[in-house]
């Protein structure tokens, strides 16, 4: 707001001396003109598809209308009613998928943060080969998703996979367990996602730690704080702003991630690992019912928006009290 007022004042003050239009063009609107390409791209890539998605959720868009979806009949809120009717099979499946996704996200989030924090603290002080260790830690994040997850898929095969080969040769299991179907598939997904996600937490936390002045640690150690004490009283309070953003971003990424579960399980994931992004994909592309799929997406959007707003509001209150 302040910027706008200043601009307006500038325009009025300089108006009498030269043609106002030209000056206005030169001075005031330049920032906005420079923003136009970004705004156009933003509209094109994000806002319009999003609104289209919301629009589709009110249509009865089945295969009969795929080619000309503008002709699809208006469905009102019936797609939403189907999705949230938890006594029906569709609603129940959505609720199940939602629960699985929440549990999976929380485990991955906690694990990624713990691993990332531990590794960041351990590599904070200079030692021989620190650069190499840091690089090694970042590899899972740097690899292309498909290439790394398909390797996990091979390793987790029941009859030919390396994991079972290893377990069998060490006599840790009596018969080959399934890793990609049944109850264990959930843990396979958690481990693979954790493996992929924690380096990002490590990267951000390392950057955060570097902004903490070293003399604070010196002061803490003079006061008799050990490593844990230093982490608790110096590191954690000072990287709180970093953590706030990091946890939110990790939550959203993990909750929404499609590539990892899809590459690991294909389009028919086991129900124990029926992550919501794939569930919606199945409902849209596989069942060819884009209306219901979009309604589910919009519900997901509202949920994530709510989580984000509550989280940020809580964070703000916490910051004020501190």
């Amino acid at each position, binding site marked *: 707001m302040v910027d706008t007022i200043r601009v307006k004042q500038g325009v009025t003050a300089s108006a009498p001396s030269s043609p106002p239009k030209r000056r206005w063009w030169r001075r005031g609107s330049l920032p906005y003109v420079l923003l136009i390409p970004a705004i156009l791209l933003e509209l094109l890539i994000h806002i319009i598809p999003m609104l289209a998605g919301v629009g589709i959720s009110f249509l009865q868009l089945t295969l009969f209308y795929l080619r000309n979806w503008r002709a699809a009949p208006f469905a009102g809120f019936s797609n939403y009613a189907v999705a949230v009717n938890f006594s029906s099979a569709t609603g129940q499946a959505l609720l199940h998928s939602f629960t699985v996704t929440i549990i999976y996200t929380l485990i991955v989030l906690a694990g990624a943060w713990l691993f990332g924090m531990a590794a960041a603290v351990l590599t904070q002080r200079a030692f021989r080969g620190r650069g190499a260790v840091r690089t090694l830690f970042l590899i899972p994040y740097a690899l292309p998703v498909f290439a790394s997850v398909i390797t996990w898929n091979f390793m987790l*095969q029941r009859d030919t996979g390396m994991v079972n080969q290893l377990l069998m040769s060490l006599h840790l299991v009596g018969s080959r367990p399934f890793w990609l179907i049944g109850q264990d598939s959930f843990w396979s997904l958690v481990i693979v996602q954790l493996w992929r996600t924690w380096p990002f937490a490590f990267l951000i936390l390392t950057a955060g730690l570097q902004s903490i002045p070293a003399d604070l640690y010196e002061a803490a150690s003079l006061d008799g704080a050990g490593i844990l004490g230093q982490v608790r009283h110096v590191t954690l309070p000072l990287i709180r702003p970093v953590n706030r953003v990091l946890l939110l971003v990790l939550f959203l990424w993990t909750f929404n991630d499609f590539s990892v579960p899809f590459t690991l399980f294909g389009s028919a994931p086991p129900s124990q690992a029926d992550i919501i992004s794939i569930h919606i994909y199945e409902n849209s592309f596989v069942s060819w019912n884009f209306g219901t799929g979009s309604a589910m997406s919009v519900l997901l959007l509202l949920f994530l928006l709510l989580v984000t707003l509550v989280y940020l509001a809580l964070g703000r209150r916490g910051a004020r009290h501190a």
Partner: protein
Amino acid sequence: MRPTKLSTLACAAMLAAVPLAACGSSGSNSSSSAHPTLTYWASNQGTSLQDDQQVLAPQIAKFTKQTGIKVKVQVIPWTTLLNQITAATVSGKGPDVLNIGNTWSASLQATGAFLPFTSSVMNQIGGSSRFLAGSLSATGAVGKPPTAVPLYSTAYGLYYNKAEFAAAGISGPPVTWAEFVADAKKLTKNGHYGLTLEAGQIPENVHLAFELSQQQGGSFFDSAGKPTFDTPQNVAAIKQMIDFMQADKIANPGDAQYSKGTEALTDYATGKAAMVFWQTASGSLAKLGMKASNIGVAPLPLPSPMPSGGKKVTSMVAGINIAIMKDSKNLSAAEKFVKFMTSTPEQESLNHTYGSLPTVQAAYSDPAFNTPAVHTFRSILSTTAAPMPAVAAESQFETAVGTAIIHLYSSAATGKTVTSSMIGQALSQAQQQLGG
């Protein structure tokens, strides 16, 4: 500053959440010119995608030499073919010519994205009388011009390993399911199995379910085209499939993960299992290194006695059709390409390589199609094959029921007991997905 940051992050959250809501894919669409380039989506007929590229390349070169039209071939695996076609339908952008599973014809016809083969289009490609009537029956809804023309014709058969049968003292292929299970049990020992199943794959599961359901007198759609998934006959058919793994223990639980559409066949070809239900596969089996003298083919067994209302169906009318996208900018070139692919020499060459059956009458004069296996499959097609339901919801039915069966196999493989009531519940859930 606070509210700005808050709203920025909230926006970021929204943006992170949304791409799911609206995504699509675009294909290529070549512009029209004197020598246009066609894009052709071929289905995976050989042992691998590369194998298909190699088989098709010389034929395409022949076509380019004859007509000057270049063709860019993309081989699409079965696991994603229907999906990619759907995306192409939505976006209006995709290949010019493509292969479709013949059972999807009625569904894809309903989208209106394909060029109908009206009599004038048919004349362009040589007339409909060239094709076998049976193959032409699976090209779309009754009473409408076909949405595609048949390219490869196949049927399901019971492939058995003659050498393993002889070693176990079994004189010939089983005729009833009771004999089948008894034989398979004899052949199951020391990590070798009597049967192998592509149990993690949608089409294989749903085709077998359809055939067994027909034998039980069941049906997945009523005469009005409404889904009737959870009938006792359909439950019994799927119970029979699951029991191969769960109760009879004649199939490896690991089969529940076989989803690529080639793994069960490979197990059969490499001697890990003695029997497999498969569509015409002599070409693939030769490439996988199986000795021709060991390959035996027979119709699928039947129940004895037949249940009341049961039909003597041992196969669906299987096959691959070739279709043209209506939005193609190179319609006349596309028609020429379809004419080429369905021409007698191409039918002889391609079907011989893949081990499938020609869809045009004239090709059968080739001695390559005068083998016992071809005779068995032709007799199955003409006497005990039934077409899959020709309703618009067919592809949704395949996906919903096929996925349900994958999950049931997974449960059985991981030690849960799959009961008839679980199957009934899974089927009614699948039916709900179709909104029925």
